[in-house]
């Protein structure tokens, strides 16, 4: 029973981010009255209180209604257990940060020490300190979710992937092949959801899971809708939708499951980028797959070569046994041809 509820709870936070932020805000408000050496213990206690008060909060039911149906009529003993687990999760998360990381974060958030001062003290730059703080926050969110879930990470890579996702650091995400990992690691796929809630709120970016035929139609529809916010000609909207349709079909046919991420670009020019990735068997011979005379289904030489002709940029990466990623872009037309 407790496990089931805890499981529901992780997904049901407004977001882990909110929780961390709220904790720090409260600590900050009280910092004037706290003795210097007591700051960290106080932060941990506050974190617990924040979690506890969330549960007493009059509007919590409204906030969580659509997610945790089984808690809408709380039976008290179980709720109390959940409460304790929440509190200790935050404490554990804070404790799992490195000594210096934690101190810097608390000094910045709680004492209000600015990044310049922190940098001067550490012999670093303000920018570097700010970046480090962002990484610490990202890490704290991950540790919180892990502690709340009491999760055992199955691979060495998991933590790095989750932290990269939590921090929204796209370069780091590519380095640790985060997207690929999420397709292969069920646990990380699940844990990453509360961490990605912030990313999902971006309205110039869409992530569409693709597993079955109807997803092909929804994905191309969504891509067309997003693209129509830019100044694309009607033909280009159809071209984009059609290209998305083709790459999604490859996912459904050859990999069974994958996702499409559609994103509007501002640099180097306005355009739309589509990334389709799967964890399927991969394409052994990419050159052959891009040859107009070759196709693995239908035998008519369609699919990828046609998609490449439709889009302005087209790149494909595939690793046998690990899946395929197609990245393609259509630029908004320049006016001078």
């Amino acid at each position, binding site marked *: 029973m407790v496990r089931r509820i805890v499981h529901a709870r992780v997904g049901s936070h407004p977001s882990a981010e909110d929780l961390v932020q709220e904790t720090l805000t409260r600590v900050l408000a009280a910092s004037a009255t706290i003795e210097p050496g007591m700051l960290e213990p106080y932060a941990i206690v506050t974190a617990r209180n924040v979690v506890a008060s969330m549960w007493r909060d009059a509007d919590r039911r409204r906030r969580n209604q659509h997610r945790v149906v089984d808690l809408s009529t709380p039976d008290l003993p179980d709720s109390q257990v959940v409460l304790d687990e929440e509190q200790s999760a935050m404490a554990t998360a804070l404790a799992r940060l490195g000594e210096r990381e934690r101190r810097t974060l608390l000094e910045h958030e709680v004492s209000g020490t600015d990044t310049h001062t922190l940098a001067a003290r550490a012999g670093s730059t303000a920018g570097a300190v700010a970046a480090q703080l962002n990484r610490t926050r990202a890490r704290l969110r991950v540790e919180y979710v892990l502690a709340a879930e009491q999760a055992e990470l199955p691979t060495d890579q998991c933590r790095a992937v989750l932290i990269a996702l939590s921090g929204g650091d796209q370069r780091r995400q590519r380095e640790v092949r985060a997207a690929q990992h999420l397709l292969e690691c069920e646990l990380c796929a699940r844990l990453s959801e509360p961490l990605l809630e912030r990313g999902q709120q971006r309205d110039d970016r869409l992530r569409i899971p693709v597993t079955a*035929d109807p997803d092909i139609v929804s994905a191309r529809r969504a891509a067309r809708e997003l693209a129509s916010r830019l100044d694309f000609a009607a033909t280009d*909207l*159809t071209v984009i939708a*059609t290209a998305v349709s083709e790459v999604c079909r490859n996912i459904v046919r050859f990999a069974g499951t994958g996702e499409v991420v559609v994103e509007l670009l501002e640099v180097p020019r306005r355009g739309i980028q589509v990334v389709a990735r799967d964890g399927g068997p991969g394409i052994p011979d990419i050159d052959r797959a891009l040859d107009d005379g070759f196709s693995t289904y239908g035998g008519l030489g*369609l699919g990828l*070569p046609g998609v490449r002709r439709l889009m302005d940029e087209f790149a494909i990466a595939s690793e046998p046994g690990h899946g395929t990623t197609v990245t393609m872009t259509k630029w908004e037309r320049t006016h001078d041809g």
Partner: protein
Amino acid sequence: MNGGPALVSIMRQGSTLIASVHTALDDSELVRFEHDLIHQIGEHRSRGVIIDVAALDVIDSFAALTLRRIAEMARLRGALTVLVGIQPEVAFTMVRLGMGTGQVPTALDLEEGLALLAAHPGAGTDSTERDARPGSTP
């Protein structure tokens, strides 16, 4: 297509079947449509088939192949298929993608499609005379 709002309607007019696609179809729906239509062609011994795809905002490789296959199966059953209503953007995208309609004749809309069938009293015989079939893709 059984149950739910009709995605496709198939009407009979004399020896001609008129199939109108009403909304975007996913792959399995396309395949169901293919089976339904072929079945009805056989049942009614139709001589001509018009498929109206004006409502399709995307005709990708699978849709194009399916439409071609329908036309080929219809031909084997003695019926000539005309595709009508391909939108300008869709037409251009299909060509860029490398998809034509093969030997399947096309017409602007339903009216033109019916006129084209009417000009072929032997609709369904293997006519390859190009000039008399405006819109056919060699």
